[in-house]
Structures are given as structure tokens and as C-alpha cells.
């Protein structure tokens, strides 16, 4: 709007809908209102413990001022391929709760991101809140990114969430943003790491699979980084995300 690219007739400020705000812990899930800011998520110690990936991604978005204003709902509904949250949303197995004329609809994060700035959200639907499964103590996660030096957006961002039982990965969810035209799940990496003990070799071997399922034609390729370089970085950053998650799992176990 500011640079004249969009000239809407009407703009509706949803910023005052109190019911879309705040973080609530209910049983095995945490409900986060769509209007909750990144800063509020970053400041929530329980979220850092329960949904490390999401909290860490929120802490990496933009800058202080942006985190004070930007909201999780706005971010996810925008589906910016280079933003930090969508990959973390997939890794943390979020459910997006939307409301429309026909009432409430629940969408898995896996299904939500369709393309660049395109989601499963219909024109007459509003994302009201998200639900994050609460970790059970055996869950560990990390989000790592390579920021663009100019915009701060992720050239590559990888979110890894691991269930670790006595040093062995029992379940893994890996999401990535910045690489494709929308956030994607890296299932080959998940398959490779599941059932493995968390060793350097296992992590490297899994990370090597990062780009396996990605369609090259839809890879981001621009001034900031070529598709080839992003694809290369994806492997490195997948490895870093797994390593950090593994370290945290260790810490969790020893703690």
C-alpha cells in the first residue's frame, strides 16, 4: 500500500478483536491467538520449552520493532516463502483454525501453504488461532536460518523437531522455508533420521537428502541467491538444525 502497489478500497483493522489474542495452554495443546505478536511468543518461556521450534523461529523474524508488531496469524496467512514461521509451523505440526461463514475449519500446517502468498485459506475465511501440540519432554527442536543481509528474510531456514528416546529418534518433522515458493516438509530427511541414533554420521546422511523431493523449477532463484546455492545451503542448514536439536535433546535427557 505504501509504495502504491496495492490500492484497496477498504481496509479492515482486526487488531482490536480481543478473542484472537493471547496464548492459552489447554491439555495437550497450546492455543495461540492469530493476533499474538512474535515478541509475545518469543517472551513465553513455556512456549520455548513446549514448542521450541516455533518460539525460536518467532525470535528470528525481522527485528525488534517488527517482532513487536507482527503477528503469527498475519505471518502464516501471508505465506511468504522466505519468512521464518511457515517452516517452523510444519515442523511443529501446527493446526490452523480458521473461521468463515460456515463456521470453524481446522487445517494441518502441512496442507496450509500452497504457493508463494497462497494458502488453503478461502477468501471469506479468517485465521483466528493456531494450536501447537505440547511437547512431552522428549521433544526437542531447533530453527536455524541464513538471513539475507539486506532484508533479513531467510535465504534458507530449516526447522527440525525430533522426538528422542534414549538417544534414538523416534519421530522427526522437518520444515524448510526460503528454498521453494512456499514452505515445505522435508520428508526424505525425516525418513532418514527416524530410527537412527543421533550421531554426526546419521545427521550428515539425513541432511544429504534435504533437496531430494524438491522440484527444481519451483526453487527460489533470485538476486540474493541462486537455486543451486540455496539447494546447497539447505543441506548445510538442515545439518545445523539437526545438530542443534540433538544438542538440546541431550540437554533435555541429562536435565
Amino acid at each position: 500500500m505504501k509504495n502504491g502497489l496495492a490500492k484497496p478500497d477498504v481496509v479492515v483493522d482486526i487488531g482490536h478483536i480481543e478473542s484472537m489474542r493471547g496464548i492459552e495452554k489447554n491439555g495437550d495443546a497450546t492455543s495461540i491467538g492469530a493476533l499474538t505478536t512474535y515478541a509475545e511468543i518469543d517472551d513465553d518461556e513455556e512456549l520455548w520449552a513446549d514448542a521450541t521450534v516455533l518460539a525460536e523461529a518467532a525470535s528470528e523474524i525481522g527485528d525488534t520493532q517488527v517482532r513487536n508488531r507482527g503477528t503469527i496469524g498475519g505471518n502464516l496467512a501471508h505465506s511468504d516463502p522466505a519468512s521464518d514461521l511457515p517452516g517452523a509451523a510444519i515442523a511443529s505440526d501446527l493446526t490452523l483454525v480458521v473461521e468463515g461463514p460456515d463456521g470453524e475449519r481446522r487445517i494441518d500446517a502441512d496442507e496450509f501453504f500452497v504457493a508463494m502468498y497462497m494458502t488453503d485459506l478461502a477468501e471469506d475465511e479468517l485465521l483466528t488461532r493456531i494450536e501447537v501440540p505440547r511437547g512431552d519432554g522428549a521433544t526437542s527442536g531447533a530453527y536455524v536460518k541464513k538471513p539475507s543481509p539486506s532484508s533479513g528474510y531467510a535465504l534458507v531456514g530449516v526447522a527440525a523437531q525430533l522426538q528422542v528416546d534414549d538417544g534414538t529418534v523416534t519421530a522427526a518433522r522437518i520444515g524448510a522455508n526460503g528454498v521453494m515458493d512456499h514452505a515445505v516438509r522435508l520428508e526424505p530427511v525425516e525418513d532418514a533420521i527416524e530410527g537412527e541414533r543421533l550421531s554426526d554420521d546419521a545427521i550428515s546422511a539425513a541432511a544429504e537428502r534435504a533437496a531430494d523431493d524438491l522440484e527444481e523449477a519451483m526453487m527460489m532463484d533470485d538476486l540474493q541467491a541462486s537455486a543451486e546455492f540455496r539447494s546447497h545451503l539447505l543441506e548445510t542448514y538442515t545439518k545445523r538444525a539437526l545438530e542443534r536439536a540433538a544438542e538440546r535433546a541431550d540437554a533435555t535427557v541429562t536435565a
Partner: protein
Amino acid sequence: MSVESVDPDEVDAADILGSAIERREDPALLTGDAEYTDDIQLPQMAHMAIKRSQHAHAAIDDIDTAAAEEMDEVVAVFTAEDIDVPGNLPVGWLLDTLEQVDHPILAQDRVRYQGDAIAVVVAEERYAAHDAVDAINVDYERLEAVTSPRAALNGAADLHDDAPGNTAFEWEIGDETKTDQAFADASHTASVDLENQLLIPNAMEPRGAVADYNPSTEELEVAMTTQNPHLHRLLMSGVIDHPEHKLQIRAPDVGGGFGSKIHHYADEALAAWAAKQLERPVKWIATRSETYLTDAQGRGHETHGEIAMDDEGDIVGLKIETDANLGAYLSTFAPAVPTYLYGTLLSGQYDIPAIHCEVTGAFTNVPPVDAYRGAGRPEASYVVERLIDLAAREVEMDPAEFRRQNFVPDDAFPYETQVAVVYDSGDYEKTLDRALEMLEYEDFRERQAEARENGRYLGLGFSAYIEACGLAPSELAGQLGAQAGLWESSLVRFHPSGTVTAFCGTSGHGQGHDTTYAQIVANELGIDYDDVDVVEGDTDEIPHGMGTYGSRSAAVGGSSLVTSARKVVEKAKSIAAHQLEADEDDIEFEAGEFRVAGAPDRSMHIQEIAQQAYLAHDMPGEMEPGLEATSFYDPDNFVFPFGMHAAVVEVDPDTGELEFERYVAVDDVGNQINPKIVEGQIHGGVAQGIGQARYEGAEYDDNGQLLTGSMQDYAVPKAEHIPEMETDSTVTPSPHNPLGVKGVGEAGTIAAPQAVVNAVVDALEPFGVDHIDMPLKDEKIWRAVHENGGEE
């Protein structure tokens, strides 16, 4: 070695010159009391916005302003047809071979860069002006665009009928025959093809102007973002045909310039012209996207360089060929930058017996290219220092020792180079030695070797730079093609109560002139620092001046103030002698006090004499009342600051990621008036130099569309991108000015790029990498490693 600042109240008057006192300009800037151009609001003020070309090169078939004119709140819409004044932007530096081309303030039938101004809208309100600009419809016929100077000179479509082949000029310096012979006789040579990329200045405050015309007096006042109000007054008076004596140019607080606010652009002239047409105040403030499209850019060289050595590792010759990008039109000082500010610096800190340099200036479809912090000197320093590293590698010498062996020795000054300048003073080994000591150099080389064993790649890059500032004298500048003198004017005026106002024709925009000038004047007059007020940046307050650029303010403006102050002291001395009933030869002046030699109790303070001068009850002979003096100081040479910078980096060959371990800077800028301000200038300059080395660069697509057109896409370095800088200095005063100063504003920008590139190339030596063009983005480093096989 950070400099500690001090409160001026805690400094003895005798020590004021050279003290790192806190700046007096800060309170206004820290509280929001500062007045930048966009802060100005005048009654009845209208807002101007500019319709710009969306194409880099196109013929204009039609401009339809009808819809814009009908919009609410639109006061007027103007196109080239309405311009009833010359409206052609002049070039202020001519070369023998220069092809001058028209540069209209509004394009009529052809646009030559994306952003070329086509029409202006004046409206009652800021947003309405921009809306109306969007409603102007322009029919273009797109033409082929070219953005690389080499491509422009080799068969691209002509931009200007008056400049066939897009050649703006061909220029050379040095002795070609002698240089060819030196290469023929040499035992070793090294060469490089490099690009010194186009940069966008990005002063934090965008350009702007507020123009106010009084039809009764015909006075036109323009407050604008300028580094040189007097030059803008002169140029604008011609462009809009307004008498110079009825034109006031005023620089309010100016939010940085780095060169971009030296040049005379169409936009400010259009605002002034529109205010006159409409007889009401007009404000124009560039959006950031407009500054990306229209601020004069810097650098833009494509260069082939060769260096030749004998058996002993002594440099015997240097050959440089450069195609310089001038952009679509000739900006104010454009022809001087890639010639006299570049070719004359190619000897660096070295004693090189034969040098030859050829430069071809090219018109291309990018915004005009002109002086940007360093202007010509960074380009020279970069090519010399890259070649020096390649040469050291060629003769298998340590880069520090290779430099030392080839330095101009400290007993050779004044030293005349093969490229037409005479270095005033220098001691290059001293800055090298200090840098080596800070770097713990030998220890570093050991660490580097060990790290390589462990698959870690450390690199250290040197940059022995030299710059020329305080361009002078005027007679020489005139011979070289300058269309202006390069003196500086000042006025030092005592008030009857004993306080002083010092006026200077420079125009600071962040450098702290108010503080440093007050230090200079207080010291010369021997009065309290707080008793001196400094006035700059307003053509109605200061009759003449040449502005602030090229690190000239301290050396030329400061020296002018010294000259004026000394004239004041001379007059005061006559009055003192008269009133103390002593012979003038017997009067001694120290710390503000005039004393009769041998009779210390017979004395008068200069502030008391000021009072006497205005009372004028008892003046000597025919002497006029009052106590003030004006001077036009014209230095007798450039000054040549120098130094040694070094970057230490670690490169991850797998990702191209780079971390600074250290950045060391040892500078010699002559005497320092305020070491804290000197340090700040070095920091800022280095940050911009690192910006060029790592992140920055204007990039265009094949159609001349700017791809780096916002701060989201053009990386202005952030706090986390700049390493902590370790600074120190040596002091080798310049013999050419009364202050012994040399200039510091551009040093860091000139020094830093090659320090970083040399460090990365050093780190990647095991991979056979010998050059990477700036900016060294991670991907480029990664590719350089992998194109060489990715293995040692």
C-alpha cells in the same frame, strides 16, 4: 585504542586544539530539535512529486497529464513543454576530449535511465501529489539499454547523438613508452581484470528541498539537502534563470551526504522553479525508491591492470586500462572522478618508476555517476593494492615485506610520482610497523598454517592506501578543467562583548564542523571555546564558499579560519600597541593576551580589545572601527593522508560464509583537531568500505531495470555486519597548511575494500583462488572455491 571523549568544560583553553571534546551539535540531534529539510513547514506550502521514467532507455511518444490535472488537490502539473528557463544541468569539470551532452531537468522526447524525470505534480498535500503522479500516462517506445561501460563502448546503441559510440572522453596519464619498455625488461608480471562495482550512496536522509519565493522582492529561498550551498546557488541561478544575488540556498541539518548531495540535480531545481511559477512555497522530498533511482552513484569501473617486477622484487612498471561508467548524463563533477581523482593516485604508497593509465568514460543507461565517498581514490587504491598482492604472490614474497621494499622511503618527501602529483609528507613504514605489531603478524602466519592443517581457512589482507584531499590550488584545478576555484572563504567576527562568530563556506552534514571549527578559532584567538559560535551552510550568512566534499573542510576550511583569525589578531595587536602605548614590534600575543615585552603587567586581552574596537574611542591612526576579517584561502597543494589497514577473516569454503576475526586500522591524517571525531570518521568510512567489499552493489537487469531498488534488496550494512575496529594513528603533519592537517573523511572507505578482498583471497590461497570481484557475497566465495575444484 578507543579515544576517550571529554567535556569541553574540563579542557584548559590552551589544550583545546587536539582535544577529543564532545560535540556541540549533538544536543539538538539527540532531542528531536534538529531541523532537517522535511521538518520545515511553511504557510501555504504545497507538495511536489515527480513522474519518472519506468524504462532505462525509451523514446517518449506521448505524455498524458489530463487525468492528473483533474484530481482533487492538484495545483499544477508541468512537463518539459512548460519549462520556460534554460533547464539544462551543467557539468562543472571539463576535459579536452569531453563530449558534453544536454541534460534537461525534464525529459521531453527521450529518457535515458530508469528514474529520468518526465513531469512534476504540485498538490496541496503529500499523498495527493503522489496519487496524481500515478495518474500521468506516458507512452514509451522502448529502446535497447546498456549498463556496463565496456558493453556501451563496444557496439551498444548510442544514448546521445553528440557522443557516438557512447564515448564521453578518452584520457591518459603517465608515460606509455617508458612503461611498455619497463614491462619488456621485467622479470615478473602479474595482472588482474576487475570490476569496481556501482554503489548507491544511501545517505540516511533522502534528498529534498523547500523553496519559497517572494514576488515582491523577487527573492527565492531554497532550503535543501546540500553539501555545498554556494555551488548550488551558482548552478541553480543558471538552470532556472534566477539572479544569483536574489537566490538564497540554505542547508538545514543535513542527514549525511557521502557525495550524493554535492551534485546539482533536476529535482531541487524543479522545486525552486515551481515555487516561482506558483508563487507559493513548494516542498519536494525524495522517497527512498527515488533516491535509489536518481542519487548519483559511485565507482563503476571495469579495469585491466598489470604490474611488472625485476629480479629483486622491485616494482618497475604499472599499466592500467579502465572503462568508467558515467551513467546517462554528465553529473556535476563526473569527468574529474575517474581521471584526476583516480589516475593521479595510481602510484599508491610505492616508488614506481613507470606508470601508464588510460581511461575511457562511457555513457550508459544508469543514473549519472559522480563522486561518492572517496571518489576515484578508492578505485585507484583498490586496483593498486590488488595488484600488489598478486605481485607479491608472483615473486613469492610475504605481502607485508613486498610492500615495505617498494614503499616511497621516508626521506624521499616531497615525492613526485609518475602520475603528476607531489606527495607532501609521509612515513609509510611507520603505519605498517604499527599495524604488524597490533596484528601480531608472525604469530598470525603460524596460526594460519596450523588452521589450514585442520581444514580452517584464515586470511589476512593488507591495504596500504594513500589519498589526496583538499584539492588545490585553484590555478592547478583550472588547468585541469575545473569550472570553479577550490579555495575556501571564511569570516571571523568579534562582537563588542568579546564573543566571536566564525563563518565558513564549507557545509557540514554530520562531520562536527561546529565543534572542530570552534576549537580552531578559540585556539587561534586564545579565547574560551564557548565564546565561539560557528555558522555554515547558508548563502545569505556567508557570502562565499565551496562546500564540503573530498575531505577538504579541515585542510581548506579550517586553514581559512586560521587565516582569518590571524588577520583579526594582527588588527587587535595594532589596537593593543596603540592603547598600551608600546611599539607594535614589542607586543607579544599568547593565550588571548597581548603583552608588552619585558613589562608583563602591561597587557590587554583580545576580548577587551574587541570592545575597544567597537567603541572606537581610541583607535590608532586611520584604522577603521570593528574587529573582523575575511579570507579566501587557496592552498598551495593537495594533502596526502595515508595508512595501513588490515582485515583478518575466516572463510568457510563449504558455505562461503565469512567471519571477521579482526579489523585493524592505522591512519596518518596529519595533526588531529579532535581525535574522537577523527576516530568516528574512520569507523564510518571503514563500514562503508566493508559494505562495498561484502554486500553493496547496484545491480541491473538486461533492460537497465534496477534490481537493487530498495533497502530490502540493496544491503546497507547493519550493526551485526560490521566488526569491531581497532584503530590507532601516527602523525605526520602536512607542511602545506597552517594546521598541519590532512583530511580524514574518506580514508576508511578508500582503505577497507581491498583489505577485505585481499584477506579472503589470502584465506582461499590453498584453493588456487587469486581474485574475486566485489561484493564478496557468500555465494560468490562458494563458487570461487568450487570452480577451482573445491579442493586444495
